[in-house]
């Protein structure tokens, strides 16, 4: 018992000794450094889960800052591996590291970061609706506090129009989405309104998991003339499963983003997550280097939208596309 207590005490003393060493070193560094040396920015990146679209956004963000700042930026990229609680732990680490800026990728990551600090600038990406994610009523594009970023909101009205243009005879449009996706609910609401205005009947089909997607997709195929899938991470993960069902049932799919369209859709009006991340990186540059005030920065959207089609599935459904459509390459 006594021995153990002594050991514990010694460990504690050692920890404090080590800690004070670290501090001393920092102070020495400060006094030796020439004043003129340009500041190296420390940027923490917290990403909710390993996912192709989110990975692309993180990559674009890093590339943009590296282009602008070269070696003067250091990244600390951490992934929550799908557990929202991990985002809180990771952000907590960034705050003790006193990073200059936090990039939070996906809604729970942004919410965790916004809770943890009201001082360090936070840029979000892969978030569809910032008003909902930050609990701001009547959101007008700026948060008024330390959060801004880029939205992955696709032009939903134009996507609904695309459904109408490509399938003028379609009556029932099935909307297939995952109920655990923060972003999908909003998209489904908006696109349903657009489809109704265009004289079509939207019908919602939500799945909860990779396990029930096939059954829900089957039901959607049975009841609809065309299926629309919004920008939905879970749907993107299961796109092949959806394709297996829909191509047998002969129901065409219009997708909210390219990844889904590549696997199971005929056409999409898409944003590129790499570009979105890149745009976020440019915002970060303005904040870090030019001292822009993040609380007054408007949420930005993807720089450009592209109409794309899936050649193999287009042929299957006998659709031909004009020159304004770009074929998705394998």
């Amino acid at each position, binding site marked *: 018992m006594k021995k153990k207590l002594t050991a514990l005490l010694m460990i504690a003393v050692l920890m404090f000794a080590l800690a004070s060493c670290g501090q001393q070193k920092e102070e020495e560094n400060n006094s030796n450094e020439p004043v003129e040396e340009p500041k190296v920015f420390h940027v923490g990146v917290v990403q909710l889960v390993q996912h192709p679209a989110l990975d692309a956004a993180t990559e674009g963000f890093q590339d943009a800052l590296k282009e602008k700042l070269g070696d003067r930026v250091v990244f600390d990229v951490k992934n929550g591996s799908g557990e929202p609680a991990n985002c809180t732990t990771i952000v907590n680490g960034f705050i003790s590291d006193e990073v200059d800026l936090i990039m939070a990728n996906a809604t729970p990551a942004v919410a*965790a970061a916004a809770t943890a600090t009201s001082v360090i600038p936070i840029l979000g990406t892969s978030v569809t609706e910032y008003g909902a994610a930050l*609990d701001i009523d009547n959101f007008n594009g700026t948060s008024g506090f330390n959060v801004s970023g880029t939205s992955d909101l696709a032009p939903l009205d134009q996507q609904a129009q695309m459904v109408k243009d490509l399938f003028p005879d379609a009556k029932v449009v099935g909307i297939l989405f995952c109920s655990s996706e923060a972003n999908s609910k909003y998209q489904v609401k908006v696109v349903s309104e657009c489809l109704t205005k265009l004289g079509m009947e939207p019908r919602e089909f939500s799945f909860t998991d990779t396990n029930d997607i096939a059954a829900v997709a089957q039901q959607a195929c049975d009841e609809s003339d065309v299926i629309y899938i919004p920008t939905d991470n879970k749907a993107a993960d299961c796109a092949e499963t959806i394709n297996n069902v829909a191509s047998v049932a002969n129901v065409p799919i219009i997708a909210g983003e390219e990844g889904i369209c590549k696997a199971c859709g005929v056409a999409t009006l898409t944003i590129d997550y790499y570009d979105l991340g890149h745009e976020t990186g440019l915002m970060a540059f303005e904040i870090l280097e030019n001292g822009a005030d993040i609380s007054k920065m408007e949420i930005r959207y993807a720089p450009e939208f592209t109409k794309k089609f899936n050649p193999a599935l287009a042929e299957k459904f006998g659709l031909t596309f004009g020159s304004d459509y770009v074929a998705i390459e394998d």
Partner: protein
Amino acid sequence: MSVIDYFYSLDPAKLLKNLPGGVAQGILWGLMALGVYITFRLLNVSDLTVEGSFATGGAVTVVLITGGGPAWLRAVFGASAGQFPTWAALLMAFFVGVLCGLVTGMLHSYLGIPAILAGILTQLALFSVNLHIMDMSSNIPVSVDKYPLYVSGRYVLRSIPVAAVITAAIIGILYWYFGTEQGSAIRSTGNNPVMSSAQGIDIEKMKMIGFALSNGIVALAGGLVAQYQGFADVNMGRGASVIGLAAVIIGDVASRAIFKGHINFAVKMAFVILGGIVYYAVVILVLWLKLDTNDLKLFTALIVALFLGIPYLQSKKRESFASAAKGGSGNAET
């Protein structure tokens, strides 16, 4: 980067600065683990309902605090138009958690479904229930700037004592309860169901109460964690059973290392909270060591396996003839 550069890049001061956040998260998840302790240690069953009921607690708390929920419930607490009291939101989370536990208990007792499966079934169902509670959104933010939250990641140093006081109060209540006739009956049910039944204890009822109490505490913890992280998410219960188990085992190993012989029940429960803190300290250490977070779950599993293995190895060491002659030590908790 060479190995030496790597070690130079690690700053112990930063690790220390990081610890308070870990302590706060550790206490809150430790409270969740206290719920796991009731089923895992006292009832001697593994209950996986927690991954669902934890998120349920978060959802109920956040929905009520942010102005949602049924009108009659708001009227009961005099909050028809105004702010729903935070304590009442947590109380509701506890009650809904109790209901979740009762469902598992009924599946187990009335339909004869093995406890682990009954828990998985309830957890599965709760995913949909949680979505309904949150009005079909998977993530609802709750900002500390807008609502009177008890704990928040924004104010770590204020959150720690608040979390500690709430946890201490719950440990106190549990200590009293498990000393009552009913509480003792629950403990004896876990220790020896056949003997308890022979003594006239309704063991099915006792298990049901155990499941209910356990999930009530888990949901309460979920409500506090949602406040701390600033949002309720339908996936927030992910990993809860592993973290709970880890905290219980770490607490167990630590208490046995420090105390010899009989350990007071309240102290045992306090060590579960300590287990939660140690768990988060280890996670923070892993992050501080700049290990790739893609491997985070691998490290987590390794840590839990390590602590799960320690009691077994210790008991093997004890299982000599000498200690057997002394009467050895029983496995069951008392």
